[in-house]
């Protein structure tokens, strides 16, 4: 199977590692080869969390610059920061609800203009799917399900070698029981959002 390379970027606390785990478990269920790696350094203290997932026939667990087939960003400025992982072939899915870095929040940095972010990504990649995933997560009943909203959007693109139902099954059996209902709703809302 030809390798499919996915990068997920997020801010610490947005649930990147759980999203990656759900995809990894879904791949295991479907018997799709998968290797993943994570960089979380001091994420609990406000940093960036980056996951790489490589599906198919490859041994590497990381993804070089320009080699991501898909980039999923949980935060718009982080999606922009990860553009070096993309090429003209890359599909980008991003949440558009900003979480400004602390430096910006206290007036010591400038947050990039949201319209400029989407224009830049559109110009440099194959396709951009951008929407307010935080709003969808709230609609699903739990803002913490933002990660699952984006997984829904990702599955809608059919770029992963995983069926949406397999990912739903992974959510059902591999995430905390108390959140399964909200997570499944979040997944479907994200799935629909990407179709529009």
């Amino acid at each position: 199977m030809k390798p499919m390379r996915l990068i997920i970027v997020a801010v610490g606390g947005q649930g990147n590692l759980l999203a990656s785990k759900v995809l990894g478990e879904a791949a295991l269920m479907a018997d799709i080869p998968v290797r993943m790696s994570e960089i979380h350094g001091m994420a609990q203290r406000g940093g960036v969390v980056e996951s790489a997932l490589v599906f198919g026939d490859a041994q590497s667990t990381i993804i070089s610059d320009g080699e991501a087939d898909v980039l999923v960003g949980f935060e718009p400025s982080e999606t922009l920061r990860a553009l070096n992982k993309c090429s003209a072939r890359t599909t980008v899915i991003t949440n558009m609800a900003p979480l400004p870095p602390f430096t910006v929040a206290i007036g010591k940095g400038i947050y990039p203009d949201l319209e400029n972010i989407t224009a830049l990504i559109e110009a440099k990649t194959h396709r951009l799917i951008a929407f307010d995933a935080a709003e969808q997560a709230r609609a699903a009943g739990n803002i913490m399900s933002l990660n699952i909203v984006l997984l829904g959007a990702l599955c809608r693109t059919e770029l992963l070698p995983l069926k949406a139902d397999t990912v739903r099954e992974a959510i059902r059996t591999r995430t905390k029981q108390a959140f399964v209902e909200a997570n499944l709703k979040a997944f479907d809302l994200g799935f629909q959002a990407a179709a529009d």
Partner: protein
Amino acid sequence: MHKLLTDQPGQRMLMLGNEAIARGALEAGVAFAATYPGTPSSEISLNLFQVARETELYFEYSTNEKVALEVAAAAANSGVRAMCMMKHVGVNVAADALMTLAYVGTRAGLVIVSADDPFMFSSQNEQDNRYYGKLSGLPVLEPSSVAEAKEMVPYAFDLSEQLNEPVILRTTTRINHSTAVVDLGALKQPQPRGHFDKDPFNFVTVPAVSRQLHVRLLENIARAEALSTTSPYNFETGEGGWGIICNGVSYAYTVDAIRDLEIEDRTRVLRIGFSHPMPRNQLKAFLTACEKVLVVEEGEPYMEEAVKAIAQEEGLTLPIRGKADELFSRLYEFDPAMVRQVIAHFFGIQHDLPAVPDLSDVPEVPPRPPTLCAGCSHRATFYAVKKATEGLDVIHPSDIGCYTLGFLPPLSMGDFVICMGASTGSAGGFAQATDQKVVSFIGDSTFFHSGIPGLINAVFNRHNITLIILDNRTTAMTGHQPNPGVDMNELNLDGYGQIDIEPLVKALGVAHVTTIKPYNLKKSIAAIREAVQFEGVSVVIAKEKCTLYAKALKQLHGKAFQITTRCRNHRDCINDLGCPAFFLEGDQVHIDPDICTGCAVCAQVCPEHAITPLKAKP
């Protein structure tokens, strides 16, 4: 039941590299484990700590890596299979024990995990610990994948018992923190009790004994070299005259590159997983079959030097390259495209790098540097030290922990950081060699780890220093592991002692010791000022539980604060404290009530007293 205790051989499970190593240890029947936490090794210990509560495995967080290795070495020499894990720089701390333990050897299997950190994702250097194998004479194993990491641990235990020597399992962050599918093997029942059979002429390393033991170590290295040559972890694939020798994650990148470049028919690969001693006979045969050889290894040219030496001794003159300006760097991590590009360049294959888009018009994205958490007591202590020493020329040696972040503005507290415990030793040197004032910082766990000898040194040599012990009641940076000062009852764990820092420091002969509650700024500033004015060694213990730890223990009950209309926009709160709970809306500073922990430090800093508690969370 803990996930790693799933007794279903053949079942496939998604695991983090560090979980796979812990599982491998359980499949080897590990009965004794000791560690000092350190990224990227920490999850190995965390999992064994949890497993130990359900099984006969003995696990301990030791005060430092040297103690951990000594504890594990004694268990192994009593016939109990033992493992000891640490980050790469931890091996420096354990090195004194390690070097002579290699002479003494071991009875039951003893595996030492060294988790190296190329690129320094969370470390102060990127030293290559394969050289510890060469320096000590001990075997070194290096996995290339998560699944192999699990398989290698039982092999390492068997090898250790075959050679009667400890075995070093050397990983890199990219193994520790990768996740993949592993096949579960059978769990092995641990044998937790042993007996130490006295044998002083093998265990007591006086010179006359050690002269004999060094002979035996050299014999063991020769035996290990023979095992290295026949080891399944040193294997050859492919055919042709182009040779690649690689190890660890570089093997994964090499395999992918060979496939992408379509040079399978011309390339043979020697994967080294048993890297000390290097497999001499196997290398000789490999080199003889090649026209030219590229060595692909992160870090130092450890294999490259060994391969070149063997080629010289065997009279082989083929080109062997690895580290060079136009090939591989000794710096940082490798990545698949870089390895592919260098392989293509070395063997003269046309290859275009992936087309990275032109990003010159992308505006600079504001960084997200790690910061001290909202409500972190270190921020309060740093602020208090700054106020207490205003107008003085002060050097602030600091140490390894969350508080290292205090070196960043606006606190700017941290001038010299090299290794665990160095804040106490270096403080004395600065005080002696300069006319500057010295106020140094160390955390509670780091103080127990290696700060105490430096403090004793300062007392004995009469250095004029103030040491601030940032006692946040846990080992916060690596994920709240216990240390000797922790109240283990709060974790519902019994059978532990507890060491109180204040009487300990007094017993060391420090004449001026005070304990402060850092959230009370006025009293803290006064106490620190008094300590700094004291001639000689003074210690201030800033005692307040890490907010994240308190939250995890459900002990965080503070009410969030708000900024009222009395605010005159002095912005001392933002400019002097920089707590991440603040944000600007237009020109007005606000406090995010979901982030604020109610520590009230900003309320004491505000010149207008404009910051007050919220009545209730909105």
